[in-house]
């Protein structure tokens, strides 16, 4: 009966397989495929929810199911569902690859689900690679070949580089400790923490995840990839993929961190560098997706603060922040996807007059941007507050101070977006945006989520704490 524990993964795998077969069977049929994918991914959310309580070990201990992994699986399948919601109009994807597009989306989600449960270094590596390779291909599916290909190649080169670093790191780690399971690693590592092999190995291992998380110094694929990828794929990378990586980084750090100041310092340095670099670079961006890419780098920096604070509080805050990011980033991307002109990226100035074109979208944009900027009473503020509280508790005052200064800097470009949407006016008035009724509901629900969770975050905080506790 153990296979029931593997329910969500099996289901997602079967769906992916189904889409592969379908792609051989018949040509793409945009509308039908979308409804199909929507239904199947919706069912995926239900199945993951049903398996929320699953606990146990699979595959000779290489695969662990607990509250931590199951909550993240729900988040991932939910993220997938949200992204599929955006795919009603996939004009940007090359027509002949529309079915494969869904196939890779599902495969990637599957890989990330494996990632959050993996306990064995090799399983982690495989899951990470599987998700990365799906994403490399997804990125190049853009109709505009030049953009997609450039983005894909940059992503791919950085990606394989990071992977090779990670494998090198894992090899060193294995050499130093002789352990491949995370739980064994946690036991052996403190003894060998003084050796260069262990230290360098650990850091290089993290390199692979920092690449996915878009942390300095593995950040530079982000801007190009976000810009060149189809909007939906960018949204996917920014939301679901980030959530999965945050989860796995939390898991890894929780396993190896034995109150070592060494690791905290490294993470603090990377966090500060990411925040500062992301925010400063975002200030000059005109392309919305590029801007969001740099803001992603900055947000990865904030998440790292939560992770490096450690302890239940720190991990819980990082989990909270990850879930918050999922909602906020997705809302911004929803607006971007809806507004994107055909075949091109959305420019910041093109948001002008959005308030008149679609008040709902403008409101969604405002709330989500304020949330990203960490202005109360939104979910983003609670996330930042939670993260900073954890760090202050550890006495990392300087780090929090730098983060706060970064928050102020980030306001600058966030406000430019709001200003464009609300106060800017364009010379020729573009037509009003027509949103189908389900999308209206979705947008409304997202706005409500961000606001309600900002005012009453207790359930979410409880959940994050429970998740973090299941790690310890």
């Amino acid at each position: 009966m153990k296979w029931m524990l593997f329910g969500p993964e099996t289901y997602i795998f079967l769906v992916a397989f189904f889409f592969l077969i379908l792609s051989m069977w018949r040509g793409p049929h945009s509308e039908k495929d979308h409804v199909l994918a929507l239904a199947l991914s919706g069912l995926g959310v239900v199945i993951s929810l049903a398996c929320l309580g699953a606990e146990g070990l699979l595959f000779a201990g290489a695969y662990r199911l607990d509250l931590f992994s199951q909550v993240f699986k729900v988040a991932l399948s939910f993220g997938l569902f949200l992204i599929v919601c955006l795919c009603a109009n996939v004009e940007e994807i090359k027509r002949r690859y529309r079915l494969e597009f869904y196939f890779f989306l599902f495969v990637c989600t599957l890989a990330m689900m494996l990632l959050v449960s993996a306990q064995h270094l090799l399983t982690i590596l495989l899951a990470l690679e599987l998700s990365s390779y799906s994403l490399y291909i997804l990125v190049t599916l853009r109709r505009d070949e030049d953009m997609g290909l450039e983005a894909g190649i940059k992503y791919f080169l950085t990606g394989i580089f990071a992977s090779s670093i990670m494998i090198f790191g894992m090899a060193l780690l294995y050499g130093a400790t002789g352990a491949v399971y995370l739980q064994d690693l946690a036991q052996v590592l403190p003894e060998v923490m003084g050796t260069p092999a262990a230290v360098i190995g650990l850091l290089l291992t993290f390199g692979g995840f920092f690449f996915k998380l878009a942390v300095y110094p593995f950040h530079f694929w982000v801007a190009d990839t976000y810009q060149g990828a189809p909007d939906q794929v960018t949204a996917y990378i920014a939301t679901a993929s980030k959530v999965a990586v945050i989860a796995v980084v939390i898991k890894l750090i929780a396993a190896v961190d034995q109150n070592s100041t060494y690791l905290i310092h490294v993470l603090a340095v990377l966090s500060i560098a990411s925040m500062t670099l992301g925010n400063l670079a975002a200030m000059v961006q005109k392309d919305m997706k590029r801007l969001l890419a740099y803001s992603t780098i900055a947000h990865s920096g904030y998440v790292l603060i939560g992770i490096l604070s450690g302890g239940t509080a720190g991990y819980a805050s990082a989990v909270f922040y990850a879930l918050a990011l999922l909602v906020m980033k997705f809302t911004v991307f929803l607006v971007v996807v809806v507004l994107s002109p055909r075949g091109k990226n959305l420019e910041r100035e093109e948001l002008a007059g959005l308030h008149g074109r679609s008040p709902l979208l403008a409101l969604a944009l405002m709330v989500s941007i304020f949330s990203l900027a960490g202005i109360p009473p939104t979910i983003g503020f609670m996330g930042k507050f939670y993260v900073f509280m954890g760090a202050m508790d550890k006495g990392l005052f300087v780090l929090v101070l730098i983060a706060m200064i970064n928050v102020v800097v980030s306001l600058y470009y966030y406000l430019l977006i709001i200003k464009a949407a609300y106060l800017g006016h364009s010379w020729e008035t573009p037509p009003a945006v027509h949103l189908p009724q389900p999308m209206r509901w979705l947008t409304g629900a997202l706005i409500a989520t961000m606001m309600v969770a900002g005012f009453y975050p207790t359930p979410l905080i409880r959940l994050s704490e429970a998740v973090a506790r299941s790690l310890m």
Partner: protein
Amino acid sequence: MEPITDGAMLSPWEPGVFSLVLFGLLVLAFIGFQLFIAHWVGERKESREKSRVYESGVIPTGTARLQFPVPFYMVAIFFLLFDVEGVFIFAWAVVFRDLGWTGWFQMVFFIIVLLVGLAYIWVKGGLDWRESHRPK
């Protein structure tokens, strides 16, 4: 495998990093010295023969930057892919009896996945050599 717990793994000598740096510098100096000597002592005679791609071989014709047919590349890649997958099957065959039915089912699953991949390539025209058979 024995975990390596020796603290001074990078440097067997006591001065530690100093020796590493010294070693690095020496290596650099040595390489530099060699390059310099080769440059200084070596005789240079430019001639057409000498600057050929293959100095004493086939005389090249035309430019190297010509277009290769993509199908060639694709077939090569596919071959490589399935070839490497074959290695797993060999490994499995060696311990076939030890793994029993579980192993057999796992390998069947593996092969099915491979076959689906092959079918996909086939249906999508990846194995067609000629241009005219491009998929829709």
